[in-house]
C-alpha cells in the first residue's frame, strides 16, 4: 500500500482585499472583503515507501500548501489524505513524529546557541531514547561531516554549514518521511553537491521517502526519478523526467567544434535552429525527422569537425517550455 496517499484534495483560501486610504485601513480592522483563491484543485497522487519525488511548480502553484497538508498543519476543504495510514491533521502529534521537514529559507535551530544544544533539545522534544539519539547523531555527524563546528553558535555558521545542521535536526528522530523545501537555495556549488549526495544516501540506505520541492532543476535531475508538476493548484504531470522530455519536446542538441573561421551552413529538414556561442555550434534538431547518425554523417562530410557530442536540452528549458504550454 502506498505510504502517502492523496485523493481529490481541494483547498481554498480567502484573501482580504486591501484598500487605499486611512479610513479604509481603519475600517478593515472590523470588516473586510475577501476574494477566494483555489490553492489546490482536486489533486491526487500516491507515493510509495522509499521513493524520492521532485515536487515542482512555479511560485504560488500550491507546493507549500500541499506540504503543509501532508505534514498535518493545514486541513484541506475536502478530499482524503493518508500518510502511513494516518490522517495527518487528525492525528497531528503522532504523525509529526514520523516526519521530518527542512525549510531552506528558515532555520529551526536556536540562533544564538552552539549547534549541539539544538540537537540536545530536539532529543527531549521528540523524547528520543539516549542510546538511539547517540547512535543517530553520531551517524549523521559523520556522514554530513559537521563535527568541527558543533560547538559554534548557529549565527556564526556559513549557509552551507547551517543547512547540513538543519538536515541533522530534521532527521535526528529518524523519520520515515522527509519533506525538503528548497534545501539547496543560496548554497555554493560544493555545499550543493554535498547536500545532494546526502539526500541520495539516506534515501538509498535508510529507505526514507523524500519529497523535494525546489527551483533548482539540477537538484531534480540528479536526484529524482519521478517528478510531480503542479500549476495553479492542479497536477499537470506525474512521471519520470524522460517521460516529460518525450511529452514536451523530443529535440536534441548536437554540439560541434569546427575549424576556426568557417561558417556552418546547413539546409536540412529537421533542423530547428543553429547557434554559435564562443566559436562552438549548437544545432537543435528533431530526431524523428533526421536521425543523429545521419546528421553527424552529413556534417563530418562537409566540414572538418574537431569535436562533437549530442545532448538533451537542459531540463530547465523543458520545464520552462512545459509551463509555457500549460499557460501557468
Amino acid at each position, binding site marked *: 500500500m502506498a505510504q502517502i496517499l492523496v485523493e481529490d484534495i481541494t483547498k481554498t*483560501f480567502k484573501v482580504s482585499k486591501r484598500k487605499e486610504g486611512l479610513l479604509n485601513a481603519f475600517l478593515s480592522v472590523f470588516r473586510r472583503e475577501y476574494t477566494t483563491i483555489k490553492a489546490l484543485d482536486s489533486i491526487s497522487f500516491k507515493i510509495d515507501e522509499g521513493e524520492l519525488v521532485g515536487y515542482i511548480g512555479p511560485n504560488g502553484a500550491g507546493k507549500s500548501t500541499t506540504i503543509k497538508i501532508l505534514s498535518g498543519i493545514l486541513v484541506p476543504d475536502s478530499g482524503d489524505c493518508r500518510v502511513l495510514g494516518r490522517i495527518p491533521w487528525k492525528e497531528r502529534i503522532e504523525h*509529526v513524529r514520523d516526519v521530518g521537514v527542512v525549510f531552506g529559507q*528558515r532555520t529551526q535551530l536556536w540562533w544564538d546557541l552552539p549547534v549541539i544544544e539544538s540537537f540536545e533539545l530536539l532529543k527531549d522534544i521528540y523524547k528520543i531514547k539516549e542510546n538511539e539519539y547517540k547512535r543517530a547523531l553520531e551517524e549523521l555527524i559523520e556522514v554530513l561531516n559537521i563535527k568541527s563546528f558543533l560547538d559554534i553558535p548557529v549565527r556564526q555558521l556559513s549557509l552551507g554549514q547551517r543547512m547540513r545542521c538543519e538536515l541533522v535536526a530534521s532527521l535526528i528522530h529518524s523519520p520515515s518521511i522527509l519533506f525538503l523545501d528548497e534545501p539547496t537555495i543560496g548554497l555554493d556549488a560544493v555545499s550543493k553537491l554535498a547536500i545532494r549526495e546526502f539526500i541520495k544516501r539516506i534515501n538509498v540506505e535508510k529507505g526514507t521517502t523524500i519529497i523535494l520541492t525546489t527551483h533548482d532543476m539540477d537538484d531534480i535531475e540528479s536526484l529524482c526519478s519521478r517528478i510531480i508538476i503542479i500549476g495553479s493548484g492542479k497536477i499537470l504531470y506525474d512521471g519520470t523526467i524522460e517521460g516529460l522530455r518525450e511529452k514536451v519536446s523530443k529535440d536534441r542538441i548536437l554540439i560541434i567544434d569546427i575549424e576556426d573561421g568557417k561558417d556552418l551552413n546547413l539546409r536540412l529538414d529537421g533542423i530547428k535552429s543553429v547557434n554559435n556561442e564562443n566559436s562552438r555550434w549548437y544545432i537543435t534538431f528533431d530526431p524523428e525527422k533526421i536521425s543523429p547518425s545521419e546528421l553527424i554523417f552529413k556534417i563530418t562530410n562537409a566540414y572538418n569537425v574537431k569535436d562533437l557530442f549530442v545532448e538533451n536540452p537542459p531540463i530547465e528549458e523543458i520545464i520552462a517550455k512545459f509551463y509555457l504550454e500549460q499557460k501557468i
Partner: protein
Amino acid sequence: MLDDVRLYFRYIGISIKSQLQYKTSFILLTIGNFLLTFMDFVGIIFLFERFGSLKGWRLEELALFYGIIHTSFAISEAFSRGFDIFDRLVRNGNFDRILLRPRSPILQILGIDFQLMRWGRFLQGFVVLIYGLIHLGVMLDIFKILFLVSVIIGGVLTFSGIFILQATLSFWSVQSLEIANSFSYGGVELASYPLSIYPKVFREIFIFIIPIAFINYFPGLMILGKEGLTEIPRLILYISPIIGSIFFYISCKIWYIGIRHYSSTGS
C-alpha cells in the same frame, strides 16, 4: 506531564543561555527596563506629594496594589513573551515549525523566549511592594506570605491568559495584536491604582470580564483589612488566586479554537 515540565525547564535553560551570550547587553536591558518602570512610580510619588491622598487612599496603600500587579505582570511577561510576540511567530512561519513538533504548542510557545531582562520590572514591583508592606506595618505571618505568593501566582496566570487571548486574535488577523496590547499593558496601568477610584462600569469590566480585580484589588483589601469596601462575598475574596487559574484554563481552550481556525485557513 512530568516530561512536559522537564522539557519546559529545558526550554527556559536554553533561553537563558542564549541571553547570557550577550552579558553586557542583558545587564543594560535590565537596567533600562527597571528605569522605565521606576519612572512610572516616581510620577505617582509626585502626585501624592501634591494631592496628599487619592480618594482616601494613602501612598503606602497604593504601593501594595501597585507592587502586586507589577510583580505579577513582570513574571508573566518573562514567561509569556512567546505569546506577546505571537503575531511575529505566525508571520515568519515559526508557528508552523511548532506545529511540526510532537509536543503541546502552548508549552513550546511559553518556552520560546524566557525574558530575563523583565527582571527589571520585577525588581521595581517587588521593591514597591516591600515598601508598601513596611510602611503599612503589616505583620507578615506565614499565612500572609503564602497568601501573597498565591495572589502573585494567580496574577501571573491571569496575565498569561490575557497574553494567550491576545495571541489568539492573531489567528484571525495578524494586525489586531497591537490593538489588543491595550488589555495587558493597559490593564497594568489601570490596576496600578485601587479599583474603587474608577466609575462603576470600569470596575465591573475588571471584575467580571477580565478578572484583574482578583489579582491585586481584592487581595489587597484583605491584607489591609478593608474587605468592607466591596460587596463581593468574602468567600470569593479568599479564593481570588484560583480565579486566575480558571481564567488561564479558559484562555487555553479558546486558544485551541484559534489553532483549529489557523489550520483551516493557514493564515
